[in-house]
């Protein structure tokens, strides 16, 4: 009884993973990811510093320049998050179910933002025209 279940469990585990340590990412990869994170950090600060000097607000308006600024900053932040989650948090070499949970967090956030902002837009947000009713 117990022997059969043990056997099947081990047979299951003996697949692709048993010949090397579970979830292994080498040190050189960690250093490369860290370098990339520092590069992206410098890039985001540099973008923030440079954007006002480009005269974007004359080209696309003040709000247009803001949208560009936020888009650049968020794209960099999302790239940094992807690197940290995939490599530092080992999601790249994790079980499928763990990967599913990690993805679920971001799907949940997306649902919250889409539904709430959808509601605000449907009510005539932003409120410069007056208070929400």
């Amino acid at each position: 009884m117990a022997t059969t279940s043990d056997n099947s469990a081990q047979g299951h585990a003996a697949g692709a993973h048993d010949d090397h340590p579970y979830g292994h990412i080498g040190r050189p990869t960690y250093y490369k990811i860290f370098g990339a994170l520092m590069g992206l950090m410098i890039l985001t600060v540099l973008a923030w510093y440079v954007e006002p000097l480009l005269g974007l607000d004359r080209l696309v308006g003040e709000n247009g320049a803001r949208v560009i600024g936020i888009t650049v900053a968020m794209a960099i932040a999302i790239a940094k998050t992807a690197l940290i989650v995939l490599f530092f948090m080992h999601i790249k070499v994790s079980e499928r179910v763990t990967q599913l949970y990690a993805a679920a967090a971001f799907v949940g956030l997306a649902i919250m933002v889409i539904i709430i902002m959808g509601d605000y837009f449907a009510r005539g947000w932003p409120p410069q025209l007056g208070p929400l009713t």
Partner: protein
Amino acid sequence: MATTTQPAAPAHGDAHAQHGPELRHHFETARQQKEAATLGMWVFLVTEVMLFGGIFMAYIVYRWAFPEIWAESAKHLNTPLGTVNTVVLLVSSLTVALAVNAAEEGRRRTLLTMLGITIVLGFAFLGIKAYEYSEKFAHCSGYANPLAWATGGAALGETECLVPGRAFVFPEEHGGAAGEAAAAPTEGAVQAEPIGNVIGAAVPTQKTPHQLFFFLYFVATALHAVHMLIGLTIVSTLTFLAWRGLFTPVYYTPVEIGGLYWHLIDIVWVFLFPLFYLVH
């Protein structure tokens, strides 16, 4: 079958004969036990993402509503110190990743060193954060900087208080509303303002929407700082356990999932930094 390459299946009757004491008996393999612990940690991290997500949601709504208020307010945050703190946290994330790697490979000395560096970096982050906070509180008390506040030194030239509350005064740069801003600290005048105005529509001379930015700034960074304190407690405990020699290449799950928590705190800061310090 698999039995030809695997050691004989452990009979659970003779306790830990076939495996180390770290393997609990309701798990069949150490690997399965580690997967269960990692998945459990991720379930918790999802709830953490949701917790911070609520604050980010409020941020999105109000920044959408008051873009120019956000641009004016963010100028009053200390971007150089925020950048230094970002570097500190990114380096600490690397040291945690290297600590997990060292535990995995059974290099105890490196594990202890990396955890030690992480603790130092964590306190450095909190120290810089505390300085930034005390700068804001010193301005509220009328002093130019925290040192002057402590020693009774140089006074702040203008009236400014960026800590949300009844004494909140946002320094006006457009001249017109300066008189009104100076009058604000008298408690009666502030109390008389109906609370509804705080979130009310954009009345040109109204200063209160600036408070929203600083309210969100203090709530988000303070919640993040609380997480840093919890993370430091976890890393300190891990250091103690590593010093006691608890972790082996077979069993280092606490280092792994403690590291996951630290990386999550880092990710939260990766978003807080551009959203509060890099606004224009």
